[in-house]
């Protein structure tokens, strides 16, 4: 059997403001992940750096170390590659007051 791989849309047309994050994604079966964050609309204000976060339990989160600047224009895409993440993954970003981005976040997982 071919190894499992999946594309999962974890945030679709969500407007991120303040302390924003994608929903927890359980992916302990996967050995590698690529996460794309696309700006579906023109971002507003200064754009933060997005970071990959991992978790011991899907509820408490710590930065994994991988990060990428949020896209600064519509259809811009940020990319984060992760190879060693345990069971849970999410993407988080902290937006200053008045700043936002409407995002499509996809996680591409491969066993």
């Amino acid at each position, binding site marked *: 059997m071919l190894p*499992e791989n*999946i594309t*999962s849309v974890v945030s*679709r*047309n969500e407007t991120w403001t303040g302390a924003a994050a994608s929903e927890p994604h359980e*992916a302990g079966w996967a050995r590698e992940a690529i996460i794309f964050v696309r700006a579906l609309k023109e971002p507003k204000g200064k754009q933060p750096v997005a970071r990959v976060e991992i978790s011991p*339990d*899907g*509820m408490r989160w710590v930065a994994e170390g991988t990060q990428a600047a949020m896209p600064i224009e519509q259809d811009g895409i940020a990319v984060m590659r992760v190879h060693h993440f345990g*069971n849970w993954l999410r993407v988080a970003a902290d937006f200053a007051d008045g700043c936002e981005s409407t995002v499509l976040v996809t996680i591409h997982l491969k066993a």
Partner: protein
Amino acid sequence: MTASQTQIEMTEAVRLALLRADPELSRFDPLSRIISHDQFANGHCGWSQLVGNYENDLDTMLPGYAQHTGAMLSTLAHWDSGSHGAMGSSYALKIATRPKKGAQNVAIKRHTFRHRGRIRFELYFTFKPEASELKLSETDVRSIGFLFDLQAGDNDKAGERVMPHLRFLNALDGKHLQKWQFKRHTSPFQAVGNGEKTLSHYHLAPEGWEDLPSGEQRLCYNEIATKVNWTYLRFDFDLKEMKALEFQCNDRQFDMSGYESIRIPAMKNLWCMLNFCLFAETDADKRAFLYVDSVCISGDF
């Protein structure tokens, strides 16, 4: 007894012997053809995110659908006890809501049918809230359930789109209700976008659920939020008459004589549609999880 009857009985005896000797299928009672048998150590098996309809702009998607996310492959890992695992492997399908009271999520498997007869939908499932509190939390999951989305063939006369729904209403506004419900009416269709080709309706809206007669059932929730037990479910439906036939959950079989499906006029692009959905809904500002160990869909043809 005629020779043909003997032959039929022998064929059935051999079929049952093979099924019951197979540890992966023996826990099911499939009809003569297995359409799909999903074990989630093999991957997602086609259970994908139910995305809403849209046209030109994603903002046209109805909010009920916009909240949906993709199902995951889970080992039911818990903060206090580690991975629980599924029945036959480490992995189950996990359908998770967002952490907002009333939030829902739906996974869908999309087929078409080749024969209008009896089909059988069997699964082993469990549900739990996210274990974010050191409490029993037995009323934090509002409901879990399933639905089919069916439509007659393009040559069938007076064909309809038929959507049988069943949910286990575990709790509502903190009250532990524990009963099966069905739905015979959907929300009105709305045009999405500025064209005329795309319509949408949110058939899982909170309104319109009715109690299944004698449909109260207490399931095995267990004693803390991180202990789970697997539950068997079987639903038989006749695609010819578009009528529910039987419904079983664990040791209980329910009277389906008062059951009705949502029935709406046939739509122009859905002929012979045979879709299966599984859903979860939370009753607290906490994620609700529906886990599925395995699914067996079979037909009598």
